[in-house]
């Protein structure tokens, strides 16, 4: 808080200063107009102590690792616990993805992430005609336990925490069975999965099972990064995520769990995009809101519950096909925003992601981007270096206000689970607005609506590389890998014991119908050779939600 006399003095000085700026801007030709962030906040070109006069250091900012955790969740920031370099991998069969993992680790990645070709586990098996052209394309094909065993082959599951990009209980069951077969104790198993908060039995079963049996596994997830990709604003990213966590908490408390039993196992997946300072402020505001909401409204007491931990992937909608190497620079700036904002774990998009699945070449550059920031620049040696900046603190406050207002709106609608469709519509409105901004040139994108180059040297350079490099420079879909996957699936089908499978399958169906936790039965079933498509069939039968498209059973609810 500022002293009254200083505030008065500041007010006069500020008025003089602003008059001078207005004079310059009206007389200088080509002076820039006011800038509005994705969240609709008008950027203040200069802030002074008067803009943060209401901020109380101990109440609102405090020290890193201390409530309300604005400055970070660990007291020593990246000094004690370095950045997790975690690049997504997933294409072809488990063998190809395992090889990519090994490559990423050889480059210095220290955490793993896998994207299956079906993030829901609800899709038909790879030999079904409905999934032709989809197998192993947008991710790795994982049909059976055998695929998961191949995926983790030679990978130290304890040393390298792995994230499963899926909402699927099937994937979790396979992961746990693989760990179990290696004799690993579930209590020491770290890792996480994209089990985002949603009103579905599968989500809550995963949370409940892990809270009791796999205590260090981050079983709950707020996948706001991909909602942001879907076009929501930074304010919506915070508010909708916190809203979903609140609804998930309500549902789990109703199931008989205590908040502190599971809250610390809900982690965030966040985005970091072009609006640099808004992103830095967003991470800071999010940590503060999380701590305040769950302490004040949910009575969480465990400090681990109140610390909002985040994995970040940089923003992709602004990655361009035009002048593709520009994406390296974009993603580097976005990564810097994330690191200055104090995230725990990071994926930096590769420059070719607007063209195809990243290659080893482009993925290694993503790893190196993080290492250069971490090792060469000194940036990670300072904790919350932008804390105390008048502008960043002001923006942090503004984002908190806007997000809290939105959280209140959602609460008035009966919580995020009930407000689901409303949130979808709000996100669509925001994404349409953004596209209009790009179309009209109100928001600039180099190579697309400004600095367009019809004789683009970068595209030509990439073509030359593709012709002359003795390594893959642009990923291409392989029909042969899809065939290989079908062969892997058929091997499992041939070798499993049908009677044993029928027995465990019936038991699983019974458990699910009775509303008991599906995970233990599912683990037995995957051991007996149950495939993901067969599990999806079981879910369709039990929950009566058969689906169209490549899906046997409806994909999970998704905001964007």
């Amino acid at each position, binding site marked *: 808080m500022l002293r009254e006399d200083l505030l008065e003095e500041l007010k006069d000085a500020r008025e003089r200063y602003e008059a001078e700026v207005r004079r310059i801007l009206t007389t200088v030709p080509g002076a820039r107009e006011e800038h509005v962030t994705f969240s609709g906040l008008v950027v203040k070109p200069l802030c002074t102590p008067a803009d943060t006069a209401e901020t109380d250091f101990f109440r609102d900012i405090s020290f890193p690792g201390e409530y309300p955790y604005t400055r970070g969740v660990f007291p020593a920031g990246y000094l004690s616990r370095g950045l997790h370099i975690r690049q997504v991998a997933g294409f072809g069969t488990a063998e190809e993805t395992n090889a990519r993992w090994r490559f990423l680790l050889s480059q210095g990645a220290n955490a793993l992430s896998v994207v299956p070709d079906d993030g829901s586990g609800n899709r038909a098996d790879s030999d079904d005609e409905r999934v032709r052209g989809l197998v192993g394309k947008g991710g790795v094909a994982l049909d059976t336990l055998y695929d998961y065993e191949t995926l983790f082959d030679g990978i130290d599951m304890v040393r390298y925490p792995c994230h499963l990009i899926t909402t699927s209980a099937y994937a979790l069951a396979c992961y746990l069975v693989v760990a179990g077969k290696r004799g690993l104790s579930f209590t020491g198993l770290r890792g996480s999965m994209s089990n985002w908060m949603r009103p579905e039995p599968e989500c809550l079963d995963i949370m409940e099972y892990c809270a009791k049996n796999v205590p260090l596994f981050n079983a709950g997830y707020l996948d706001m990064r991909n909602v942001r990709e879907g076009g929501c604003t930074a304010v919506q990213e915070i508010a909708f995520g916190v809203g979903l966590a609140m609804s998930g908490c309500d549902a789990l408390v109703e199931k008989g769990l205590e908040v502190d039993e599971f809250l610390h196992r809900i982690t965030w997946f966040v985005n970091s995009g072009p609006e640099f300072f808004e992103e830095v402020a967003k991470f800071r505001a999010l940590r503060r809101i999380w701590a305040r909401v769950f302490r004040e409204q949910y009575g969480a007491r465990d400090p681990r519950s109140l610390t909002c931990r985040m994995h970040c992937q940089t923003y992709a909608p602004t990655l361009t096909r035009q002048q593709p190497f520009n994406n390296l620079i974009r993603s580097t700036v976005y990564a810097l925003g994330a690191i200055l904002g104090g995230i725990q774990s990071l994926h930096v998009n590769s420059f070719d992601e607007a063209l195809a699945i990243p290659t080893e070449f482009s993925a290694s550059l993503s790893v190196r981007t993080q290492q250069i920031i971490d090792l060469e620049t000194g940036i990670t040696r300072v904790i919350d270096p932008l804390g105390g900046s008048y502008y960043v603190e002001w923006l942090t406050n503004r984002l908190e206000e806007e997000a809290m207002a939105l959280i209140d709106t959602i609460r008035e609608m009966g919580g995020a689970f009930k407000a689901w469709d409303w949130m979808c519509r709000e996100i*669509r409105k925001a994404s349409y607005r953004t596209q209009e901004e790009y179309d009209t040139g109100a928001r600039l994108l180099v190579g697309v609506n400004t600095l367009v180059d019809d004789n683009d040297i970068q595209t030509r350079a990439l073509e030359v590389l593709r012709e002359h490099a003795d390594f893959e420079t642009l990923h291409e879909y392989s029909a042969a890998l899809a065939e290989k996957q079908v062969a892997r699936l058929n091997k499992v089908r041939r070798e499993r014991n049908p009677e044993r499978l029928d027995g465990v399958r019936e038991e699983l169906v019974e458990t699910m119908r009775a509303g008991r936790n599906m995970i233990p039965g599912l683990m037995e079933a995957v051991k007996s050779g149950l495939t993901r498509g067969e599990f999806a069939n079981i879910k369709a039968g039990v929950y009566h939600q058969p689906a*169209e498209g*490549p*899906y046997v059973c409806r994909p999970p609810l998704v905001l964007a």
Partner: protein
Amino acid sequence: MFADRLWYWLERGGAVNRPVKFLLSRDDWYHQRGYWVVTTAVRNAGMEVILGGIQTPAEMVRTAVQEDVDIIGYRIMDAAPGVVIPILFAKMRENGIENIPVVVGGIVPDKDEVLIREMGVKEVFQPLTPLSTIVERVQTIALAARANRS
């Protein structure tokens, strides 16, 4: 049979000004930003959008027939364009709607773009194509095809 044909003719010829009907389907469930942005833009331009949602090529053709659409839009991101487009065209021929134009948007590598254009895809909209371009092309292609059919 004759009545059917008469009705078909009357409907096509008698309603020249009815808005273009655009079926928009997608290959997979995730990352729907373009799907909704395009839907909104096409609707704002006065066309009618049938939301196919996540559909296999066979399901798209079924909807296209039921809804009697003028043009089919296919959001391809997770699927291999070179695999799913031939399946779509085969199903369209089986159902006698091969004269309905198909446009594609999403993540389509250059090689695949050339390939599916050769197969008969009328337009491929790459990421960040201005909405006005998409609207104009959809309208033009749909009306040209409608004129050819009547």
